[in-house]
């Protein structure tokens, strides 16, 4: 339906990225490293963006329709926030899916959904117990790390799935993640603007 609007454009940069070897011991390692960074910046700015938008459109649509049909009319605020959370999760997932599993954060996002579904079936008490023990550990082991390392840890917490990742990999992941987030924000803004433009007209015609 919507996909027919967008021709499936295969990103040439991405296919060449797949050919990139994992471990390179020659002088090409430097060239590869540079290419990785440049590609991660470029690939989030291509036509694939529109494919992402199309998928997001369809999915968020279905999801919200399902949820709003089941929930009642009273909880208006909760509905909005719940729907917002869902849409955000959906958007993140579609973003991660579009990364084609090449980056760590994308795999973490996709995996977290599975984990969240499993946790739902478990009791809530267990999770709180784990949290407490984790907090106690951090209190006792408080050693002042140097500023840079502290900030690197914070960055690791921000990028999904990159808490215990080495520094150069973390920086790579952060680069790709930032590029992807920028693209996501642009897509959602575009979508929102188009909808706000269309909305007044539809409400006018509806009522």
């Amino acid at each position, binding site marked *: *339906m919507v996909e027919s*609007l967008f021709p499936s454009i295969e990103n040439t940069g991405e296919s060449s990225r797949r050919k990139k070897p994992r471990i390179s*011991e*020659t*002088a090409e*390692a*430097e060239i590869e*490293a540079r290419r990785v*960074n440049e590609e991660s910046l470029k690939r989030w*700015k291509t036509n694939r963006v*529109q494919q992402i*938008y199309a998928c997001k*459109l369809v999915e968020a*649509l279905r999801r*919200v*329709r399902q949820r*709003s*049909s089941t929930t009642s*009319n009273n909880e*208006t605020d909760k509905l*909005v926030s719940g729907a*917002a959370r*869902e*849409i*955000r999760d959906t958007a993140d997932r579609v973003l991660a899916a579009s990364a084609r599993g090449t980056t760590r954060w994308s795999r973490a996002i996709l995996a977290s959904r599975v984990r969240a579904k499993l946790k739902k079936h478990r009791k809530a008490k267990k999770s709180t117990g784990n949290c407490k023990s984790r907090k106690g550990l951090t209190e006792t082991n408080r050693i002042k790390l140097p*500023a*840079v390392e502290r*900030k*690197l840890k*914070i*960055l690791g917490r*921000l*990028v999904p799935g990159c808490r215990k990742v080495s*520094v*150069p990999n973390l*920086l790579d992941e*952060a*680069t790709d*993640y*930032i590029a992807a*987030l*920028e693209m996501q*924000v*642009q897509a*959602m*803004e*575009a*979508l*929102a*603007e*188009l*909808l*706000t*433009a*269309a*909305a007044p*007209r*539809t*409400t006018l015609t*509806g009522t």
Partner: protein
Amino acid sequence: MLEGLVSQESLSLNSMDMSVLERLKWVQQQQQQLQQVVSQSSNNSPELLQILQFHGSNNDELLQSSFSQFQMFGSGFGPNYNMGFGPPHEAMDECISRTSSCHMEPVDTIEVLLKTGEENRAIALKNKRKPEVKTREEEKIEKKIKVEAETESSIKGKSNMRNTEASSDTSKETSKGASEIQKLDYIHVRARRGQATDRHSLAERARREKISKKMKYLQDIVPGCNKVTGKAGMLDEIINYVQCLQRQVEFLSMKLAVLNPELELAVEDVSVKQFQAYFTNVAASKQSIMVDVPLFPLDQQGSLDLSAINPNQTTSIEAPSTSWETQSQSLYNTSSLGFQY
């Protein structure tokens, strides 16, 4: 005299068990010899000084001619010298395969040093850099040979990767003493003047340069990172930016949650061109907005060609139930007061 000295020490150089002291001694001797030789020849040839002061020009032909002149004056080296300077031109451009071999023949050691010295100078000239004082170059050569011996004797796996990256990183820099030496198998690390050349510091340096290179990429992509110097400040900016982006996503998702009912009706409005046009507009104006007001960027974007949007083509995919529609419309009305500024 020179050859004798050379032959003695070069043999010891071949054996990998040579201690550091011995190596140092040998290298110092070579240095002295080189100095003598060069001073001798410089007394004879003003062209050598000319070459040494030659900078800024990338003209390979000129270099070649100057080298040939130098050959004529290097009478003390006999026929071997020509061989050494046969292809300086190619050596400048491609891999220096000469340095791969462990074995340094006694007669050719000085040649090697000279040749590498010349090549270093040539590469330096090619890089448009003022040629260093002779001693500095020789010290570089000394360290290069040291490192060569080390790398060739060590395990090739990890150290090669590190050396690869280290030298490839140093080759990008314009700092003194950094020149690109590529090989088929592995790459020699070029230690700069006054820096340690043991394995650990080399590895550390390679790692640090990798990290700084990646930070530079991040600096390019994060707006406002250019003003801050130092890793901590840059990391602050990066963290701030990521948090901004995530907050934006949340806000936009909330907005979309509200607007979702209209999604179905308006879905056919979107065409490829409109979306692309929107993207270019957004991308152009995005950078300036992001830094100042992260939370509500939409309010500042006045330049949207909404006129291009054609709302007439509305097709209902599934007929929404009336109750659901009224509910969502009420939602929209109530929340629109909060969102619009």
